[in-house]
């Protein structure tokens, strides 16, 4: 039934909006924003994969003495969360590089417009 897959489809729509911005826009900052949007969309997709209806965070509080199996039956999947943490960090790393490049490009070419930069490349 398609309603069950609706959140995945909306995450996919976000992915393609980000892809559109990266492909169609000419301004460096817009391209960087497109990559950030793409990262948000893929992280969201991984998050939706791990959810279990009625699930709680996979963290045991000192108070509960429920058995391991019962805890496992009630909690959300921790593995996609670990993947997303790694993906957020990788996204931050790429952003740091892109912003550094954008600043140096602006310093050397004086503009953020990729078409003018490609002409002036020399």
């Amino acid at each position, binding site marked *: 039934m398609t309603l069950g897959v*609706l959140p995945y489809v909306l995450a996919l729509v976000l992915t393609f909006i980000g892809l559109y911005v990266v492909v169609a826009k000419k301004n460096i900052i817009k391209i960087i924003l497109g990559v950030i949007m793409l990262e948000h969309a893929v992280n969201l997709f991984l998050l939706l994969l791990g959810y279990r209806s009625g699930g709680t965070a996979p963290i045991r509080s000192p108070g509960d003495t429920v058995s391991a199996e019962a805890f496992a039956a009630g909690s959300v999947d921790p593995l996609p969360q670990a993947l997303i943490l790694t993906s957020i960090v990788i996204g931050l*790393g790429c952003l740091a590089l892109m912003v550094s490049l954008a600043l140096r490009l602006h310093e050397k070419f004086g503009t953020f417009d990729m078409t003018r930069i490609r002409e002036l490349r020399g």
Partner: protein
Amino acid sequence: MDPILWPLLALLAFMIIGSLIAAEAEDLLSSVVCVGAVGAGLAIINLLLGAPDLAITQVVVEVLCVVVLIRVVLTRRHETQQTQKDTLAVGSVLLVLGVLLAVSTWAMTTLHPFGQPLLAGDRPGVAYQYLTRGLAETGAANHVTAVLLDYRAYDTLGEATVIFVSIMGAYAILRRKGRIHHAPGNEPDR
């Protein structure tokens, strides 16, 4: 249906609208702010779907990204006069992306539906082992940290290296002079 489905769909709609505004906004600063809003929406969805670690990390990283981008854009946004929009290229890009979106949506219908992942089924994958044996074998109450730093610690070594490399890369790109002295005829631009 699932109690959290309607708030989730509302937040997803908010994120999609935010992304569209960020894509089409003329002024760079408003685009940056819109992307910040999309990130904040994602942080709230993290809380909704039971991922507090991610919510903290997402919020703080989002704040840092938006601060960096605003500093970059603050004084350099006067050059946003759009070069003439060649509608043919934009149209063809939209067409291709539309076809790809349709095909992937059709392919996604065969996934396990939202809310009933493999973990909830009778043959759970590796995540069931992490949940049942996490506290006993690693002693960590936070199973996400148990996965990150004990079961799959090698991944986290890679991750720490990613941060290290991107920072050293940023230093390398931002240093004052690239080449010290040049071969004859290969002078720097200015």
